[in-house]
């Protein structure tokens, strides 16, 4: 019975399980039915057939009549028969089931009855025992109450006593505290002292209104103040290293010393030491204007090792103490700010020193030392930057390095210019040096080669030095500045282009220089510089630029001044120099001719017997110039020469043309005729352009000089009045020039034209124009 009830209490199972358990459950269902319990399985079965209707044989509302009627109505006979047998079978099974159940339950019932009987007996005995127990307990309670009432007074006393004991111990601690602290201080166990004091501080503070405690507190405070003083002293002396210092600071902080003050003190202390280091560094800069006491690498090394190293240490310990220490959070921002200003100040000074030192580095030789020093400096600052990000030390350091590099490049440019100037001075000296008879000094060509080679060598060397700044193993070379701007701007534009410009510019200065106010550049120098500039134009510039571009990997798109512009500049300079050379030489010869014409009395002169010395001098000078120019410039092209150019005599014009022109004729129409004649002649002869631009060859240069000289001669002649012999002297002189000058010029017709003009002008200015016989002229000239 109990099991069935339990089974039903197990709760409804899932439908699938219910169906599977159907046959086994059925007897239980019957029992349930019997006990009037709802059978979920039966309910389900009924729902499956006709929902527990009157025809459901297992349903609670089964109506045998309706069932029978339904069967009879619905089923054929065979089925009825089957149904009947089935029913009979079921009834039988049910009967047997019931029988078994009855037996089973009967047995159980009997044994249950037996059990209940024995229980009934046992309980009776137990009840008696329980009664005894209750009585005992009452007795115990009673005695216990008695004991406790007697003991209560004593207990209270003990509790009070133990309280007093603790209090007394505390008091004793407090009373002993000053002494203990003093001892601790004496033993230099500052940590312990601070810990003791920390324990007592709150109590003392709380009871400070009591005189005795107040006294203790005062004592303690005095001692602690002393302690703090000693700690600070130690902190200030600072001899004992960073760790000790840290401990000091920690203790002081625990003593509730104001953190700000501590920061300040710490920094001031550290600052003093660092400043001392900086002072040492500064001392190494040497006296103002004097030489530094050590080289820059050593300087930077010292700076890095002593100053930057210690600064790093200070920063690290400071950060440990004030910024990153547990419990330092509230003071961290303040501390950080203080540190920042502190570092900034020191670094500022340090940078100042480094910069000054770098500026002192004026040497223009190898820059590897400087680069190494800067590299070290820069690296060290990187470390500092990592330690203290945001201080801007690295960027400032990079800026210094950049400035140093720029300054260095500027120095190199300066040095190159200086070198160039020295070269020029050397050349001038070489040119001015007195020539030993028979032994020519170094020729212009050699001088040019020397200058050119040494300049190029110097440029290469400087480029090499500068290249160190961008070497791969130097840390700062991968900064954007050194990759880009330094290469393109500073080196290429500033150094290389600047130098080339300086070369051309300085050369040009000789053209406009004080020129006519003393200190004229020797003409040979002009010539040499002109050739130098021309060489630059043709090859050197492109060579140097290519060299620079390759070495420094200058990107094409940022490349500044193109080579062609420089070439044009160089060419213009060369042109100007050469033009100036022609002008200077021409004017020099002119001067000579002018003086000679001006100082002579042409009216009262005697019959010419020789060529005047000045003409010989002119030819000599021209020859010298020819040699000089020939050393540096190519021959150039001449106009086709007439075969008899050297043999050409004055006879040509003295007989045919001259006759008409110089024939003394005093008819009034004569002047018109001569004018007409000369005009017509002019129409046929080419107009002489006195100053056509000079080309870069010997003939053109010489032509220019000869033209200027002869033109000047002509002008001088036109300013004078001649007697008969004066005219004849001019004739002789011109023939002489004619004999020697044609070979220098490109177009000898030009010389002839000008000389004709001179003789014609002299004839025109002659009071008694009787020309000399050409044969005589020739004889005189050949004799001279």
């Amino acid at each position, binding site marked *: 019975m109990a099991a069935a009830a339990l089974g039903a209490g197990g709760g409804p199972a899932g439908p699938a399980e219910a169906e599977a358990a159907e046959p086994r459950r059925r007897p239980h269902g019957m029992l349930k039915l019997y006990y009037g319990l709802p059978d979920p399985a039966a309910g389900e079965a009924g729902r499956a057939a006709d929902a527990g209707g009157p025809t459901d044989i297992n349903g609670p509302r089964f109506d045998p009549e309706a069932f029978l009627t339904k069967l009879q109505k619905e089923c054929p006979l065979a089925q009825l028969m089957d149904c009947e047998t089935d029913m009979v079978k079921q009834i039988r099974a049910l009967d047997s089931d019931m029988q078994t159940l009855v037996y089973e339950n009967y047995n159980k019932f009997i044994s249950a009855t037996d059990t209940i009987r024995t229980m009934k007996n046992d309980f009776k005995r137990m009840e008696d025992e329980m009664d005894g127990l209750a009585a005992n307990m009452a007795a115990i309670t009673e005695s216990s109450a008695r004991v406790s009432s007697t003991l209560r007074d004593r207990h209270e006393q003990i509790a009070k006593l133990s309280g007093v004991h603790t209090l007394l111990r505390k008091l004793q601690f407090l009373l002993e505290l000053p002494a203990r602290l003093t001892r601790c201080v004496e033993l230099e166990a500052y940590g312990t002292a601070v810990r003791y004091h920390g324990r007592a501080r709150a109590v003392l503070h709380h009871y400070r209104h009591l005189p005795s405690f107040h006294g203790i507190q005062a004592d303690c405070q005095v001692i602690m103040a002393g302690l703090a003083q000693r700690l600070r002293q130690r902190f200030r002396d600072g001899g004992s290293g960073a760790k000790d210092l840290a401990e000091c600071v920690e203790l002081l902080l625990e003593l509730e010393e104001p953190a700000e003050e501590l920061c300040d003190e710490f920094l001031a202390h550290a600052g003093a030491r660092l400043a001392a280091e900086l002072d040492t560094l500064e001392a190494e800069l040497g006296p103002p204007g004097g030489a530094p006491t050590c080289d820059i690498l050593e300087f930077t090394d010292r700076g890095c090792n002593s100053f930057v190293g210690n600064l790093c240490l200070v920063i690290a310990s400071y950060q440990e103490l004030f910024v990153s220490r547990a419990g330092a959070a509230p003071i961290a921002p303040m501390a950080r700010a203080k540190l920042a200003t502190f570092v900034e100040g020191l670094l500022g000074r340090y940078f100042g020193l480094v910069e000054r030192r770098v500026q002192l580095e004026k040497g223009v030789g190898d820059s590897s030392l400087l680069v190494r020093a800067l590299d070290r400096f820069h690296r060290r600052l990187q470390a500092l930057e990592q330690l203290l990000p945001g201080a801007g030390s690295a960027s400032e350091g990079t800026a210094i390095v950049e400035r140093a590099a720029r300054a260095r490049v500027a120095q190199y440019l300066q040095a190159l210019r200086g070198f160039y100037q020295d070269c020029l001075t050397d050349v001038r000296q070489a040119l001015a040096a007195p020539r030993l008879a028979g032994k020519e000094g170094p020729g212009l060509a050699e001088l040019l080669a020397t200058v050119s080679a040494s300049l190029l060598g110097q440029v290469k060397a400087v480029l090499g030095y500068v290249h160190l700044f961008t070497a791969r193993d130097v840390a700062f070379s991968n900064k954007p500045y050194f990759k880009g701007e330094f290469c393109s701007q500073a080196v290429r534009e500033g150094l290389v282009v600047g130098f080339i410009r300086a070369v051309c510019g300085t050369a040009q200065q000789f053209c406009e220089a004080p020129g*006519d106010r003393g200190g004229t550049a020797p003409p040979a120098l002009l010539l040499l510089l002109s050739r130098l500039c021309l060489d630059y134009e043709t090859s050197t510039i492109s060579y140097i630029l290519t060299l620079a571009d390759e070495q420094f990997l200058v990107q094409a798109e940022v490349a500044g001044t193109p080579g062609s512009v420089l070439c044009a500049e160089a060419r213009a300079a060369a042109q100007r120099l050469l033009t100036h050379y022609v002008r200077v030489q021409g*004017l020099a010869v002119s*001067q000579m001719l002018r003086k000679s014409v001006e100082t002579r009395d042409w009216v009262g002169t005697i019959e010419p017997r020789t060529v005047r010395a000045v003409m010989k001098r002119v030819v000599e000078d021209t020859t010298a110039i020819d040699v000089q120019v020939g050393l540096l410039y190519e021959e150039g092209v001449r106009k086709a020469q007439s075969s008899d150019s050297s043999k050409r005599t004055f006879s040509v014009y003295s007989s045919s043309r001259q006759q008409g022109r110089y024939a003394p004729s005093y008819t009034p129409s004569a*002047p018109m005729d001569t004018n007409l004649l000369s005009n017509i002649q002019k129409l046929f002869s080419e*107009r002489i352009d006195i100053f056509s631009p000079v080309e870069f060859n010997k003939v053109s240069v010489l032509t220019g000089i000869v033209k200027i000289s002869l*033109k000047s001669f002509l002008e001088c002649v036109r300013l004078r*009045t001649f*007697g008969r012999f004066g005219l004849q002297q001019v004739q002789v002189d011109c023939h002489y020039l004619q004999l020697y000058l044609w070979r220098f010029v490109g177009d000898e017709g030009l010389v002839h034209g000008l000389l004709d003009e001179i003789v014609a*002008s002299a004839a025109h200015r002659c009071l008694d124009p009787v020309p000399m016989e050409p044969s005589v002229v020739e004889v005189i000239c050949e004799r001279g």
Partner: protein
Amino acid sequence: MEDDAPVIYGLEFQARALTPQTAETDAIRFLVGTQSLKYDNQIHIIDFDDENNIINKNVLLHQVGEIWQISASPADKGVLATCYNRTSDSKVMTCAAVWRMPKELESGSHESPDDSSSNTQTLELLCHLDNTAHGNMACVMWEPMGDGKKLISLADNHLLLWDLQESSSKAVLSNSAALEGKGQLKFTSGRWSPHHNCTQVATANDTTIRGWDTRSMRQIYCIENAHGQLVRDLDFNPNKQYYLASCGDDCKVKFWDTRNINEPVKTLEEHSHWVWNVRYNHSHDQLVLTGSSDSRVILSNMVSISSEPFGHLVDDDELSDQEDHHQEEKTKEPLQDSIIATYEEHEDSVYAVECSLVYRNQCRGGLRSCSYQVVQFMLYKNR
């Protein structure tokens, strides 16, 4: 300008001496002195009618010798002074004299050029500047703003100040100064400054330029080595009293501030041979004309050192245009110094250039150059 081509006037003889007629204020008139050793020399009075582009000329005979320098009196249109060569036997002497031209030519005649040669007239000699004691005359200068009574002549190394008395018939040497130094010093050229009440004269000898005070006849400044070679000519800026232009055989034209003579204010190197002549334009002192034996005449615009630094290069024909033009120019940047024109029509060396004193409508003027051998006489209109 209707026509850029120069007006050419041919002379029969060679000529070096050229001057504008200073006293003439209406017409553009130049005087040219010729050089001929064999024939009677002439003085051509050349009027330029700029409206019709026509030249009128008159010829006067100057029988005493070839003319090296000529200058017109600032006060009397009919008076002029010449330096001329007198040759006697085997001696050539340069003398100076003051002349008066016939009355009817004073104001310029308008007879046709054709018959002018038929009735050549002769100059009337007023007086000689006696230089027997002083040597060859290099040049004669009239007091620029004066009444035509004062002259300065340069003779070898002497600076002579003359007073003309008794209606110019007598020249009295009132003061003189001599140049002392090593060697034979010779004045080559001079110019009387129109500033400082006409008390300053600048002279050139060899490469040196000197300034003189006419009251004390003392040297007031001396620019040593002003040019690398001989100084050929000088001119004062008509509007800026301390500015002086010089030119010389070193092919350069230099501009000086006489208060600071260490360095020239400006140097031009445009010519390729001796520069014989330099002249400021009288109305617009940024215009500087130079003539050189490289056969070129160059007109430069030296705005940066002119009295009109903001460029007032008047170039208009009509007055009505000027208003607009003025406004335009005010907005312009200061102009750069530049060469305005190079006249290369000369066949031979150019020895003299002059600017006319007369400017019509502030826009026209004659500038004139005189060339040697081909005896061309070109008259350019200033553009």
